[in-house]
Structure formats: C-alpha cells, structure tokens
C-alpha cells in the first residue's frame, strides 16, 4: 500500500511539475524516447515506497509486537521487488497521460483507494462483489500482492510472480503506445506548455 501511495500521486503529478517548470517540451523534444525518461522516475518512486514496507514491518515488530515469520524468504523478497516494479509500471501509464491532459494528475489521487480496495492489500478479493474480481485480475499489483502473501504465509508464490510480470509487461507496452499517441496529440494541439 505504501509503494502504491508513493507512486500514485507523485507519478501523476511528475510531468505536470515538468510542465510548470517549462521543461516538459525539452523532455519531449529530446531524442530519448519518453518512456525511457518516465519509467526511471516512477521506478525510483516505487523504490522509495519500498521503505514503507520495511518501516511497517519494523513498526509492527517493535511497537505492536507482531512477529512476521516468512515461509519463503527468497520468494518474499522477489515478490516485493516484482510488486514494486508492477506499481511503477502502473505509475508510468498514469504519468504519460499528463503529457496530453493537464488535469490527469487528479487520476493518481482518485485511484489510490480503489487500487487499495480491489488489489487485495487488506481486503480479500473473495468478499468483494463477483464483478470486481475480473477487474482485479487485470491489475498486475493484484498478483504481486498475492505473491507477497503466499511467500509469507504459504502457497505457491512463483506462479503469481510470473503472472504479475506478464501483466506488468502488457501495461508497459500499453504505456509506451499511449505515450507515443499522447505526445503526437499534444504536439498537434499545441498543448504541451499549457499550464
């Protein structure tokens, strides 16, 4: 949850910040493809968000006396990294929408709680309405969270890790296509520098 919080709002506002500073045009005009500029930003945010995972485990251990025993420590570590990666890819898709739409930063805030709710962070998918579950399966983070839980509590985390990576790759492809389309549209409509 902390990783998603760290990425959701900041990813959606990162390019708006560039726009406000007058540097968005320079980023778009540079020969480096936009995804290669944006992904490292969202990846770094997700990495910072991993701090909250560590802090929560330590906080739970020393403030509340909660002992977390990990059944598969290696799979747990891999699942955490893969989940953070999947969150950064979601952040990438959010971030590129701001190239064309100035108000897209609000998407990050709006999606923070829905993603918490439908990805199974605290609420099991089984108690959500049936029609929500297919939506959950379409989000890579759902599989990442499932892998983290299975690695910690028991189950088969590697299958979920693999699915998480595949779905994240699909989102990365969608984000890349979207980035190209939105940059073209922003150039056509001359909206890049509009604050």
């Amino acid at each position, binding site marked *: 949850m902390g990783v998603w919080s760290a990425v959701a709002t900041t990813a959606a506002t990162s390019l708006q910040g560039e726009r406000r500073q007058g540097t968005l045009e320079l980023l778009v005009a540079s020969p480096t493809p936009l995804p290669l500029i944006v992904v490292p930003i969202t990846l770094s945010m997700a990495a910072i968000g991993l701090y909250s995972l560590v802090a929560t485990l330590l906080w739970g251990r020393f403030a509340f006396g909660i002992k977390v025993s990990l059944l598969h420590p290696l799979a747990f570590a891999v699942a955490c990294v893969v989940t953070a990666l999947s969150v950064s890819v979601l952040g990438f898709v959010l971030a590129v929408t701001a190239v064309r739409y100035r108000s897209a930063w*609000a998407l990050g805030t709006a999606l923070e709680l829905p993603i918490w709710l439908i990805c199974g962070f605290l609420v099991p998918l089984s*108690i959500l309405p049936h029609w929500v579950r297919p939506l959950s399966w379409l989000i890579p983070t759902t599989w990442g969270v499932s892998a983290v839980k299975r690695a910690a509590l028991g189950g088969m985390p590697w299958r979920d890790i693999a699915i998480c990576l595949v779905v994240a790759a699909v989102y990365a492809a969608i984000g890349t296509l979207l980035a190209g389309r939105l940059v073209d549209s922003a150039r056509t409509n001359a909206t890049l520098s509009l604050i």
Partner: protein
Amino acid sequence: MRTSARVFFLGGLMSYRALFTWLSPWILIPTFMVGPIFQILFFAYVGRSAGVGNDSFFLIGNAVQYAAIPCLFAMGNSIGGERYEHTLGLILVSPARRVPLFLGRALPVIVNGFVVSLFALTVGALVLGVSLPLSVLPLLVIVLAVSAFACTGLGLVTAGIALRVRETAVVSNVIFGLLLIFCGVNAPLSSLPRWMAVVANWLPLTHGIAAARKIAAGATFTDVGRTVAVEAGVGIMYLIIGLVLLRIFEVESRRHATLELG
C-alpha cells in the same frame, strides 16, 4: 463595515474561484466525489473482512472526515496559492481588515466541506445499503455543517503555516492522516490508547463524528446538543489560533522578507 462585508463575501468568493485548478470537473469529480466514496468502501470492507464494526460506523466516520480534504487543502491553498502566484503581497499591503479578509476565504471552504460530506454520506449509504431514516437527516445536516466549520478552523491554522512553509500540501496531508487515526473515524476512541483519546478531544471532527453516529442511532438534538456545541467550540478555538498565526507570520514574513519566496 460595508467594506469589511465586501472583503468578507466578495473577496472570499473570488479567492475560492481562483482555485481554478481545483474547480475543473476533471479535478473536482475524482477528488470530491470518487475519493470519499472509495474511502468509505475501503474501510467498510476492511471492517467486514476483520469482522469489526458495521457499515454504518464506517460510513458516518469517513463521510464526516472527508470534509477535511476541502477544509484543509482549499484553506491552505487559498493562502499558499496566493503566495505561489505572488499576489499575497498585494493583498497584505492593502488596508483591508484581516479578520474579514481571512474569514471570508473560509466561508466557501466550509460550504465545500459540508457538500462533500453530505454527498459522501448520501451516495455511500446507497452503495453500502445503509438505511438512514429521513427523520434523522435534518440533524445530520446540522452536524455535518458544524463539523465542516470546525475542520475549516484547523484549515485556517494550516493557512497560517502556509505563510511560513512552502509545502502546504504536505502539511495538509499529514494533518488529514492524523485526523483519520485520532478522531475515531475507523476505530472507536475507547479502543485507542488513553493519550490518543485525550488528544482527539481537542481535534475537530471527533465530536462531530460521535454526534452523527448517535443521531443515526436515533438520538435527539437534546441528546447530542452538548457534543455538537463542543465541536463548534473546537472549531472556534482553531479559528482564533489560525487568525493569530496568520497575524504573527505576516509580521514575521515582512521582517524577514520571506513573503514572496515561492
């Protein structure tokens, strides 16, 4: 007197309208309509999953607490935004009296917070299937309005802080989180550590949420009148603190020439 009234009403309205980056439907709908509904749903489902509380408990707590988004952020931004746009100096060199100037900016924010809470309560109840008798609605509306007023008092404090620090959004986010934890929104005060419950009594929304829950359970105004009065009192206390902070930091910012630092 007439000038002060103009500063209060027209100045406040113009300042609120100047928050145009918020007032776009593309911002307003996700922030004020989608956000509160999903906060209610999230905590209601956490409660269902953990087998604690009931939907009505989470619905009322979160609907009242979500007023904090406009009350804290809009209030902080109304000063921080002026500072960012370099118009704060122009306002502060004017001879306008400060009390109507700043309270006028608070009035539209109170209305905004109230409407957001009312919307969240109504739609949240429909989505979760919580039935609130029509007879309790007038009292609930009063409590929502008083709670929005009290929270805007705290917002005025953040507006005062906005004269001293640059990142008002960070301050507002931290306060929003504190209110979520301390005010009995998703956990009864009785289950919190003693010191947290003591702190909660001095925060806005705590008494408003308690009163709203009692009303939903069938209490009359006589039963909750004192609680609502305490909520209003807490709001007045923060309003005064906010005005004092604004005065102190205005003088300080002139002395240290920091008013225009964006």
